[in-house]
């Protein structure tokens, strides 16, 4: 596939983003379709409840989908570039298992505070997982990327087993809640969620754009980057912390949305090239649009109920992953 030029790529992607967000806002309950949404946008909604549904439920959800997709995709780019491993993704550190353990522990708290404590507990769990992985590899040789991967897998298994044990010993219904939460969902979307997630993703993007040229150098090899004056260990720690923080925030609100961080950077790389700055922006926009449409599918395929979003991303991601392996 021929790569798109700078001039063509950005407007094309921005148009795709605008189209996705506007068009996705028209999917949901059948009464509030595109025509009604248009009416609400240009004037008055035909029913006041539509106003609430559109602006307080549906639009925040579409925007959260975009932000989460954006964040996971750029975290994926960073992880793949910093480890020079095409299979790296933001969940490498056992973040989902950590968040899952946090969420599980949160179910032991009284029901009345669970709404607040579940994302916070999940975030603490995710950070704990990352810290554990980093602690293991920090004393080790950083250049051994495989150690990072292996430590992530081991921590993942450890935390998952703890989660399973707590669920088994606990109330039969909390198991359902945690398992479905881990499958991912954007239903938690509201203004507050967006206000927490958006700054983290913007800071992550800006920081990584500032470090983009150093990351380009790192793509060659650690030695070449050092020769060019890059402080490789420091750069790697900064990038890993950025990825961990943004992924942990996304996971704690949206649950485990798998494979976006792995799949989108590879598609973007094929279309827009490997230069870090270009790749970051392109992957982010593409990932955002992807998740917006996956969520449309999640909430419209089955009438009266939703499919957990992580189920769809993982299903698509796995097929893509297998295709990728055939080429490798």
């Amino acid at each position, binding site marked *: 596939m021929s790569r798109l030029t700078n001039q063509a790529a950005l407007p094309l992607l921005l148009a795709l983003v605008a189209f996705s967000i506007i068009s996705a806002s028209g999917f949901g309950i059948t009464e509030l379709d595109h025509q009604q949404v248009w009416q609400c946008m240009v004037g008055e909604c035909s029913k006041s409840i539509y106003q609430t549904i559109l602006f307080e*439920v549906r639009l925040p959800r579409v925007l959260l989908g975009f932000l989460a997709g954006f964040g996971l995709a750029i975290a994926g780019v960073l992880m793949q570039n910093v480890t020079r491993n095409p299979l790296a993704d933001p969940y490498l550190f056992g973040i989902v298992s950590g968040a899952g353990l946090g969420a599980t522990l949160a179910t032991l708290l009284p029901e009345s505070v669970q709404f607040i404590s579940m994302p916070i507990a999940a975030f603490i769990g995710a950070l704990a997982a990352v810290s554990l992985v980093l602690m293991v590899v920090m004393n080790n040789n950083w250049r051994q990327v495989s150690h990072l991967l292996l430590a992530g897998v081991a921590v993942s298994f450890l935390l998952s087993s703890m989660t399973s044990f707590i669920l088994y010993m606990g*109330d039969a219904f909390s198991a359902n*809640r945690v398992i479905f939460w881990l499958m991912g969902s954007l*239903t*938690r979307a*509201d203004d507050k969620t967006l206000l927490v997630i958006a700054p983290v993703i913007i800071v992550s993007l800006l920081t990584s754009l500032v470090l983009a040229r150093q990351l380009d150098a790192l793509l060659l090899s650690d030695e070449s980057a050092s020769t060019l004056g890059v402080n490789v260990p420091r750069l790697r720690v900064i990038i890993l912390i950025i990825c961990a923080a943004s992924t942990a925030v996304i996971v704690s609100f949206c649950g485990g949305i798998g494979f976006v961080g792995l799949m989108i950077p590879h598609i973007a790389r094929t279309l827009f090239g490997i230069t870090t700055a270009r790749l970051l922006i392109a992957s982010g926009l593409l990932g955002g649009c992807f998740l917006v449409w996956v969520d449309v599918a999640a909430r419209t395929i089955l009438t*009266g109920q*939703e499919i957990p979003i992580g189920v769809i991303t993982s299903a698509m991601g796995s097929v893509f992953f297998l295709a990728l392996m055939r080429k490798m």
Partner: protein
Amino acid sequence: MAFPKLKCNVLVAMFLLLAFSLTSKPVQSQEELAQKAQAQEELAKQEKDKELKIIALAPHIVEMLFEIGAGQSIIGTSEHSDYPEEAKAIPRVGNYARLNIEHILALQPDVIIAWRSGTPSDDLERLKQFGLNVVYSQPQHLLDVSKEIRELGELTGNQAIAEQKALKFEAQLANIKHTYQEKRPVSVFYEIWAKPLTTVARNAWPQQQLALCQASNPFIDLATDYPQVNLEQVFIANPQVIIQPHSSDKTNPDAINWQNYQQIDGAKHRQILHPNADKLHRMSFRLVDELEKLCQDLDNSRRFYQQMSDIQN
């Protein structure tokens, strides 16, 4: 002369008919009025019921609402609400894992009745934030069913019928308790799930039912309400009866074929019971009839073992 007499008779008859029709007209209209008033009253009640728009988020809540005559007020429900037959036509607005917030908001319910354990608490919190009235159902003990029937009666304005149903339920439970409390305990294994082999203990819903039937459960003191056990433990416990509940519409292909384990008394003597899981496990009115049946079946097993021991002695 016959003719003038006949003429006279006809005249009298016509006069009487006229008089009757003139006098009877106001009487008929009074009856009509009374009928009309009654119809209007019924219509008003129906409209009042219709006015209250309920979203009932669990099968047992739907069953109870229909039972107390408030079924037509339900405008949305969750999956698996399949009883009575009319419940199948109610629009689905979610399941135990996720609610469709948009759909619920668009239906504009007056009240949402949710099962605390089986409804996602984060979604309910969001609905509360939108100003919707959420009421919880959380039956923990068998008698909570009648308590909740009364509460639903208060909520829907159907107190009289709710009270009547609640009293009937309580009387049936008391009768079961009275009938079996002095009986000799019969040991049972309750297979709630086969792979992994899961049973009931402590305060689990079926365990409370076993206690009423005077059935002893060797696993009652395990750590959780629904513990997984090893088949070896069942061999050692050697229960006299095996209870393997079945869902009415489907059989579980994974269910253990206990006939393969003749070492266990229950299997050896073919004392294997298959109560209806949909009725027994659902916290609503129907459970009490099925429970009566289960207790009777267990009593038959009890008698079987008694006779066997009498013969041996």
